[in-house]
């Protein structure tokens, strides 16, 4: 998706913003994030790819990160903007810890802070080009929410970004339950990620699954999904062709 809005801010001597421009389009992007609430907390899955346009350029990008004690943030979209957001949150968590008073930022607070940041940037026509997924557990309560690059924000039992909205959410709507165990949750996420792997051209077969419970955050080591390409139609793809497509 590209915007081309030519902006002429005039003379660099007189105008401080003369040679800078607002966000026009993303460069290095991450694809879908899929996340669900389960019995003990929240599970989130993402692959480790960073695409440079149509090139699958970076294959070791961690798109999920723990925030403070109680939250986990996953991002799709522009990777450099995600890194910027991580810097904002680092400062936020640092200041929260400096109070040293027994209070701590929970997932709800972090989600709302991010919503404010995203919406404010959108209002300046200089968005952070990400869709963020924020999950966490505090005082026994699970929380899962999403914020888009224009500041649309909501909570739900299961969320997905990008292509995940179209490919993963229908599966989750049918098969999600509140009392999923850890193994069932992982299986469900893997089912979604496999469909994305087959159908989303920016997906790569190297994914991580992150779990957040009352005890804390664990991000798994990267691993691959088993895929099946031995369908007979793939063996001789042009067998049935009659000249046209």
């Amino acid at each position: 998706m590209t915007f081309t809005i030519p902006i002429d801010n005039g003379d660099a001597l007189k105008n401080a913003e003369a040679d800078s421009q607002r966000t026009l389009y993303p460069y290095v992007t991450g694809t879908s994030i899929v996340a669900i609430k389960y019995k003990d907390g929240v599970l989130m899955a993402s692959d480790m790819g960073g695409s440079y346009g149509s090139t699958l350029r970076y294959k070791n990008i961690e798109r999920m990160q723990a925030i403070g004690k109680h939250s986990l943030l996953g991002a799709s979209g522009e990777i450099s903007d995600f890194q910027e957001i991580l810097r904002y949150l680092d400062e936020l968590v640092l200041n929260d810890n400096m109070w040293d008073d027994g209070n701590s930022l929970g997932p709800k607070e972090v989600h709302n802070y991010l919503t404010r940041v995203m919406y404010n940037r959108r209002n300046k026509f200089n968005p952070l080009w990400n869709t963020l997924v924020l999950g966490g557990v505090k005082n026994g309560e699970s929380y899962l929410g999403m914020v888009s690059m224009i500041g649309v924000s909501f909570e739900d039992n299961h969320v997905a970004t990008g292509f995940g909205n179209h490919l993963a959410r229908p599966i989750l709507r049918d098969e999600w339950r509140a009392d999923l165990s850890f193994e069932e949750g992982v299986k469900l996420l893997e089912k979604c990620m496999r469909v994305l792997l087959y159908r989303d051209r920016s997906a790569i077969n190297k994914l991580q699954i992150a779990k957040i419970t009352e005890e804390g955050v664990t991000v798994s080591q990267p691993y691959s999904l088993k895929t099946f390409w031995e369908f007979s139609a793939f063996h001789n793809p042009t067998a049935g062709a009659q000249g046209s497509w």
Partner: protein
Amino acid sequence: MFRNQYDTDVTTWSPTGRLFQVEYAMEAVKQGSAAIGLRSRSHVVLACVNKAQSELSSHQRKIFKVDDHIGVAIAGLTADGRVLSRYMRSESINHSFTYESPLPVGRLVVRLADKAQVCTQRSWKRPYGVGLLVGGLDESGAHLYYNCPSGSYFEYQAFAIGSRSQAAKTYLERRFESFKESSREELINDAILAIRETLQGETLKSSLCTVSVLGVDEPFHFLDQESIQKVIDTFEVVPEEEEDAGEADAAAADGAAAAAPAEQGDQDVAPMEM
């Protein structure tokens, strides 16, 4: 405290390491009418004596709601108190807007204290002449803090400030160990009894005091006159005996007490301090 050459402005230290202007500001708190706060594990009660300038006027408002989970009672210059309450409301609402979550009272109190400290270190400012009893909730339960003009703050189980607060403090000191486990009703009872101590002989009526409550499942609100009167009725049930004994004591005490109130008497209390 006598006038001396080190008390002209707040940025002058005395040779004995005192900032007299700050101490004079704390005097202003002692002149205001009494305010009391007490807390249990889950509730905080703030109460104050309603003093009116004259019979013609209404009484000063000394207790303010800062948010559903924070209230403040003031003693001293009520104008300064009003301004600080507005600051507290502003901080609270800004936090709620950004984080959709109530501002922990401990953090509000520190910001308030830092704001007061600034006024003790600028030659063009003066300290706030008001003491604040801030009651509120955070993750660890109910808390009560006292913020004073010097910029220090302390946490309390129960405290009283303003004129004749010593009587209330004596009462609270006897009973504070039980407050942690007190029920909401017991806490309100104790607050009103502590108020009664500051009235020193004057009959306690619901029109003379304002009481407010907040708790873990109860947003900050004021108790209405009827509820307060009902509580008063439970312990002012035997008025004749108490009054007879009280009158005899009062007659003896009056002679001694007459000297003291004259100093704190109405002529010396500036109209802005209530």
